[in-house]
């Protein structure tokens, strides 16, 4: 089993609903985005265009973050997900410098919320799960996947641009999409990390 994601760039409308769904599901603090949408522009009027690129941890096949982690806090699970053991992480941030996609975040505090009035009830409930002085990133919503659900971003995307599943299962939607789109791309292939998030 090898979980992966396929993102349809032609469908993505750059609305950032996935980013917000991720924050809601995982309760990340201010300024921390386990996934985001990068908006770029190209060309000049009247041929100008805007492009949206959803960016998240690629759960790479050969993850540089896991290779450099000195204490095996970052590792690849049997299902292909790259995970971080928050109880083991020493907060050295070597993984952050080694990830070519800059998708990891350092937990600098868990008592500062979005509003001046202090933490909301929701923030009080979720921020405590983030251990200060450790590193985090997208988990492919392992807690939801265990229950047979899709990651929150996939569930939320209004344009149906995100697909999640087992890349090793030829019957899965992601495997079929990759068969139908032999030109599917990964980000920065020259880094040699072999991402499992594909763009079509």
């Amino acid at each position, binding site marked *: 089993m090898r979980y992966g994601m396929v993102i349809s760039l032609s469908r993505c409308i750059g609305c950032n609903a996935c980013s917000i769904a991720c924050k809601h599901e995982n309760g990340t603090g201010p300024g921390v985005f386990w996934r985001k949408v990068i908006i770029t522009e190209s060309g000049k009027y009247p041929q100008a265009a805007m492009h949206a690129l959803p960016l998240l941890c690629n759960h790479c096949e050969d993850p540089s973050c896991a290779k450099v982690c000195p*204490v095996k806090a970052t590792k690849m699970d049997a299902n292909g997900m790259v995970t971080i053991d928050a109880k083991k992480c020493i907060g050295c941030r070597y993984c952050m*410098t080694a990830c070519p996609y800059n998708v990891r975040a350092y937990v600098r*505090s868990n008592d500062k919320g979005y509003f001046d009035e202090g933490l909301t009830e929701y923030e009080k409930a979720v921020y405590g799960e983030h251990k200060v002085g450790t590193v985090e990133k997208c988990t492919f919503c392992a807690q939801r996947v265990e229950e047979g659900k899709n990651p929150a971003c996939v569930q939320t995307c209004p344009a149906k641009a995100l697909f999640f599943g087992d890349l090793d299962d030829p019957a899965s939607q992601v495997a079929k999409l990759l068969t139908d789109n032999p030109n599917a791309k990964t980000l920065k292939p020259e880094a040699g990390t072999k991402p499992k998030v594909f763009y079509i």
Partner: protein
Amino acid sequence: MTNSASNEAKRSTAGNLILPVAGLLAVIGVACWVVQLIVGPSVLADTIPWGVYIAAFFLLAGAGSGLVMMAAAGDWGILPALKDWRRSLLIGAAASYIAAGFMILLDLGQPVRIYNFFVSPNFTSMFVWDFLFLLVTVVLVLICFFRKETSKWLLGLTAVTALGIVLIEGWILAVNPVTVWNSALIPVVFLVEAIVVAVAVLLAAKGDAFESLKKILIGLLPLLLIFSLIEMFAGNYMGASQEAAGTKLLLTGSLAPFYWGWVVLGVALPFVLLLWKGARAGAVKLAAVLAVCGVLLAKINLLVAGQALPFEGGTIGYFPSIVEIGGMLGGLGLAVFLFVLGKNFFGDAPAAVEASAETEEAKAPAEAETEAEA
């Protein structure tokens, strides 16, 4: 009072000040760490993962390794003038390594969990090898220092593990698939920088006493500049956009004041001061201090340039927080404090006092060079 007597008095006043000033800096460093432990990493700059703590760690670990290599060079007759400095050099190396360890503790988000290096080491990580080589080298340095009989073979082995530290620390950056860092030249640059710092520390301590060391520094400083040019030329020749962006950042971008500051104050000025024939001891010491500061600046530039160009485009700025600056100065102060304390406590009687026959043999060239220099 004669001129030489007043100079001597000035020197001893300056010498007396070193211990309290370095001690004060060390206390400030520890205080910054305590603040960090209480408040959390939110007191640090949040823009890039590795900043001045890691730069100071690389500087101090490199200084320790360079000093071990100098001690070995003295024992092996490569730099005979250093033969009698063995004990001081080993105290300096131990002090630098301990201060480097302090910098790492400051940098870790979960310092208590450092035991995971023993219980769950990942041998594909350069950090683990660095940790192992540091531990082994510190133990060897202590054995070399406390052993009654001096052994140039044991010190030679220590120099090899010390060399390992410097190369591994270069690889910590070079193995990353990251623009600016992903270069085979970085371990070589780290090695040259380690020797520059060790030589400069000796010159800063003894001014004009070592003509041979002055020559080494004169030779190595321009080499660092040449390495920088090689990196930039190789990276830009084919117009690789990320490499070009890294070069632009250093030459004309947000890192330009620091890059050119390194070129002028960390390389050119000390080089000219050292070449100056009629330079007094004070000018040589100034050149040495500038060279050490230059290496620190070069390390900060390298670290920041490798992290300032995120995948998503644009550049990330970095300026250390007050706590980081205090912590870094604390680490540097701790190295000096431990060195002076070590020297006062153990004394720096030349190894020749406990001499083996081997030591006596090598004493002759050492004296010859000292006399020639005089």
